[in-house]
């Protein structure tokens, strides 16, 4: 009897715990998404409604005026700059990182472990502490305020992650697969290209997505390395716009939405690879 009661009590506790967990999860989700929804709402409201008390999440009349004003200011050029820098950095970093990641698994060479350690250590050091010497250096060697400055700096930050993620994958591919391909008459690199690389797709996607988020979202590197308005990235242009039109919250939130849409859509598309990449790396150590 008493055992029966205890079990029932347990069930009640379990149900209560489940409901509490669900409510807490809902609250957490609202805290995470709410501010972004508010930004979208502000960007679509007419100016007289933006400052209305009490506020409403759903605009009574939807307007795209704020977006139009940003395009009038040339925000699409900054968007294009961000996209080009990001694409150049991610593609070059993933190619270089994959080659190195493959070499670390399949080749023996001098100072291999020291080189690997250097990649891992540079992953831990955030670029910010070295940004000022980099700026002074770039001014002296003529790279400051050039279109290649940001792709180089972003790529250098992404390469170690690409090495880390692809190396972990290549290590899990049995070498017999390549040997079998060699028997079929493939050269070593044809085997790597046609047999090993397609399987590395998750690692390549994870490294690219991580690189995209890093490069696209950066503000501090681009504001310190680029001076000309026509080479500015989207986040920097947004902060300059704020400097001139600090109270134009409709346009500022429209800019925030434009800057946020690509990384969030990319994250939602590739979340499995990103989450998998980070959790696998951490579990494997």
């Amino acid at each position, binding site marked *: 009897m008493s055992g029966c009661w205890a079990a029932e009590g347990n069930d009640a506790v379990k149900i209560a715990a*489940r409901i509490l*967990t669900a409510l807490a*999860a809902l609250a*957490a*989700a609202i*805290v*995470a998404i709410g*501010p*972004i929804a*508010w930004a979208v709402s502000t960007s679509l409201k007419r100016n007289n409604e933006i400052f*209305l*008390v*009490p506020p409403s999440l759903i605009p009574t009349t939807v307007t795209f005026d704020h977006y139009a004003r940003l395009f009038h200011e040339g925000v699409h050029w900054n968007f294009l700059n961000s996209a080009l820098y990001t694409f150049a950095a991610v593609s070059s970093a993933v190619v*270089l990182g994959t*080659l*190195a990641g493959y*070499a670390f698994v399949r*080749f023996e*060479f001098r100072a291999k472990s020291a080189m690997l350690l*250097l990649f891992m250590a*540079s992953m*831990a*050091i*955030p*670029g*910010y*502490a*070295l*940004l*000022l*010497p*980099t*700026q*002074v*250096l770039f001014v002296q060697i003529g790279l400051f305020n050039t279109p290649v400055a940001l792709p*180089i700096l972003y790529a250098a930050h992404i*390469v170690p992650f690409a*090495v880390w993620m692809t190396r972990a994958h290549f290590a899990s591919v049995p070498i017999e697969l390549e040997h079998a391909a060699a028997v079929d008459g493939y*050269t070593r*690199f044809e085997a790597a*290209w046609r047999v090993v690389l397609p399987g590395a797709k998750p690692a390549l996607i994870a490294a690219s997505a991580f690189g995209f988020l890093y490069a696209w979202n*950066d*503000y*501090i590197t681009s504001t*310190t390395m680029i001076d000309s308005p026509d080479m500015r990235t989207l986040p920097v242009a947004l*902060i300059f716009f*704020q400097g001139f039109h600090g109270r134009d919250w409709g346009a500022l939130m429209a800019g*925030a939405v434009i800057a*946020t849409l690509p*990384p*969030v859509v*990319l*994250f*939602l598309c590739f*979340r499995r690879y990103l*989450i998998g990449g*980070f959790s696998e790396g*951490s*579990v494997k*150590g």
Partner: protein
Amino acid sequence: MNVATTRQRNAAGSADPAAATRRTGLALVVPALAVVVAVNVLPAFFGFYSSLRAIFFFGDDGFVGLRNYAQLFADPSTWQAIRRSLVFTFGSLALAVPLAMLAAIGIRKLGAWGRVLLTVLLIPWAMSPIVVALLWKWILLPSPGGLLASILAVFGIPPINLMSNPDYAMPTVIAVGVWRTFAFAAIILTAGLGQIPADLYRAASVDGLTALERFRRITMPLIAPSLLIVLSVLTISYFNEVQIIIGLTSGGPIHSTTTLGYLLFEVGFVELNQGRGNAIAIVMFLINLLLIVGYVRLLGGGRK
């Protein structure tokens, strides 16, 4: 690709295959290594060199020895900035790690819905820090239009100016920074929880352990390695955080959010005192190295 293939064919035909693979291996690693060294290692040395010189506005007035460092450490505002960096870093950790732990436990408990929750919580992490700062500046605006002020107004509470009050500014930047980043820690902790065998919990239930005891005696010891990874990644990331502060408070009010990272921004990039700025950069770089070495030792020790 063609060049590499040809090289490989030549290598296969050469007399010493071991030397050939050594060369190929190096040839594959060196381009990646060159980029990383050029951008991470070179500036560290150049920064140290610059920190020993009087450089203003990109003009070099010559060698001054350790004068930049002496002035830096003689200035009480430097020590205040270091103290604020510690407050920001450990304040953020104290908020982010328990939240991430709770989120990870919830995510495991909710099963399929947990994966949805993790995705939702990670959306702010996919955003640009400076855009996050801009967004929260708008939400916290203490005048009509500001969401927080409007919500408070419903309850008859007057607006609070969080960003221009020296007492509230630091907690505010901490909270906004954690809002963007804590879910990243939840990924690693969720994966860590997934590694704990469910049998252990079943056995513990049979033994009559309470939920709290199960957490203390099973979850905590087994999650410790993941927790250590989270702590190391977040400590370094929070210590170097500057974009949230630039976007929200610009180091103010009355320098109450001027961390070492923000001081570096102000002295090096705004005042263009690049000699002293590089001294700050080198100090930050060394603190980072110390943190990394410390955590590598802890993590390495934990594995054995």
